[in-house]
């Protein structure tokens, strides 16, 4: 049961949907700021706190989780491997890591970036591997 009786369930569903929209906008903003910071360190962080934006993202996520539980909205576990966004995200991570290693020689840069991505993939496998 919803713990806020004065607001209708429909309103909470609208808020729930809006929170997802806000989350998407915040994530896109965060990614854009990361790109800008990568290209020109300090261009954004000198004026706007990235930490505050990260806190806002976690706050929205927290509210989504809480409302989802209250509204008893459940999802099937997303199949990350089949997600169309995955190649885009991998490319984004590749460029971001590669950009931060510009001072290295090209082959060193590529090697470190690929090894880093491989490590991330292995971590993902370890964390999300279904329990036997």
């Amino acid at each position: 049961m919803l713990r806020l009786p004065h607001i209708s369930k429909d309103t909470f569903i609208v808020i729930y949907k809006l929170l997802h929209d806000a989350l998407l906008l915040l994530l896109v903003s965060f990614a854009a700021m990361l790109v800008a910071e990568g290209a020109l360190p300090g261009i954004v962080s000198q004026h706007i706190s990235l930490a505050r934006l990260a806190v806002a993202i976690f706050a929205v996520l927290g509210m989504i989780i809480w409302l989802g539980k209250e509204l008893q909205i459940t999802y099937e576990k997303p199949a990350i491997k089949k997600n169309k966004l995955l190649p885009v995200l991998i490319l984004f991570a590749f460029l971001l890591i590669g950009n931060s290693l510009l001072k290295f020689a090209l082959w060193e840069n590529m090697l470190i970036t690929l090894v880093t991505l491989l490590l991330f993939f292995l971590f993902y496998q370890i964390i999300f591997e279904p329990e036997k």
Partner: protein
Amino acid sequence: MFDLTSKIKLGPALQKKYALARILLHLAFLAGVIFVADRVLFPSATLVFSFGNANSLKNTLGAPHTSEQPNVLAKSSVAANGNLIFDANPVGNFSDATITFGADKTSQNIEGSAVRLRKSYQAFFYPTGAPIGFRDGTLLATPDGSYYIVSDGALRRFSSTDIILKLGYPKSAFLTVSSDDLRYNSIGADITDASVYPDDTFFAIGDTYYEFKGSQLFPFVSTRAFFSQFDALQAIIKGDDFFSQYKVSDSILGFADGTLGSSDISVFILSQGKSYPIADVATFLSMGFNWNDVVALDADELGTYQRQKQFTYDQPHPDGTLFLDQKTQKYFVIENGAKRPIKSAAIAQTYSKQKPVLADLEQSETSVSCQLKKVLLSSSTYACTAALDSFGQFIGNDYRIDTTFSNETKISSIDTTFSTPLTWENLRSSLSKIKENLKNNYVPQQ
């Protein structure tokens, strides 16, 4: 539009409300984007000082002082026609500055008080001191046939050329100067004894250079350190047996004051036995330093210096820094809170091994001003805005703000906001700076 919750279906009425709320959310997001763009493209910086918490780290303005006592924190109470001077070091270029004084409620009206701003380097705003003379250890000859050594700041004349030969000074090391050039050093006692070396004589023993002082030999940490100030010719070559006559000091001499040294990825300013690690690239560039002037130090060289806390952009250049006025080509040496001019070309020649920081005396004396007005709806806050456009590309990272108060007052706080108004010209200027920075980051430098 991208919908993360497409599986949650709403009724027509609710869908309408959701669509409306979504538009509002996107408008709010757009406002946020405009806010960030405004901050990035039209930056502003607010720097403050509170007399109530004068030692607080939250004070971002330089400590206010008076023209009479430049090194003492000014009292918050200022007499009529009294002045307050402080420095502001905002990072970036700004088009105007608003200076706000919070006065005690019982203070008299200070409307009309003049606020004057100038731009240069903080150390270059130091008062002009006495002209500097030749460096210690310099060997000089005048056309009338007199020979001198600069010892402990004073000119000491060799009473005869015989003494010079007996002591072993190389004749070619004597710099010929006019008698006029000598007037910037005090006169010391004549050198009459051929068995005693005057202080600040240099020796080369083996691979090491030494400075003679108080009957001791002070070794230079490396030949590079010696060459950062002197020529090899200036040193008298001696053998190891010389050590039996004089004790070698434990104190080791380093590079010329004001030298920039690097170790790993850190760059240090070396001055008077201390090394100041420069906080970041922005600080290095804002102080007018040149990457080509940085000497890569080895562990022994850096080890002779006592490491200090980080050198940030709001600190003045340390003692020993050499400034070159770009218009008159005159040099100034920073020493004990004063900039001491080098008045003679011959003296400047002895400082030629040091790399100067480019400054501009005329620019440092150019000012913009405004008059304080009472802030609307406030009884004791006064502010005025000065346009900084005329400073254009002035050299320096420091704004010197000088206020003369029309009446007796007690200041509680100072707030200085540097801003960039929303104009096409400023937008173009910001975008051009971004383009230039991108080029610096991604296009290999020649």
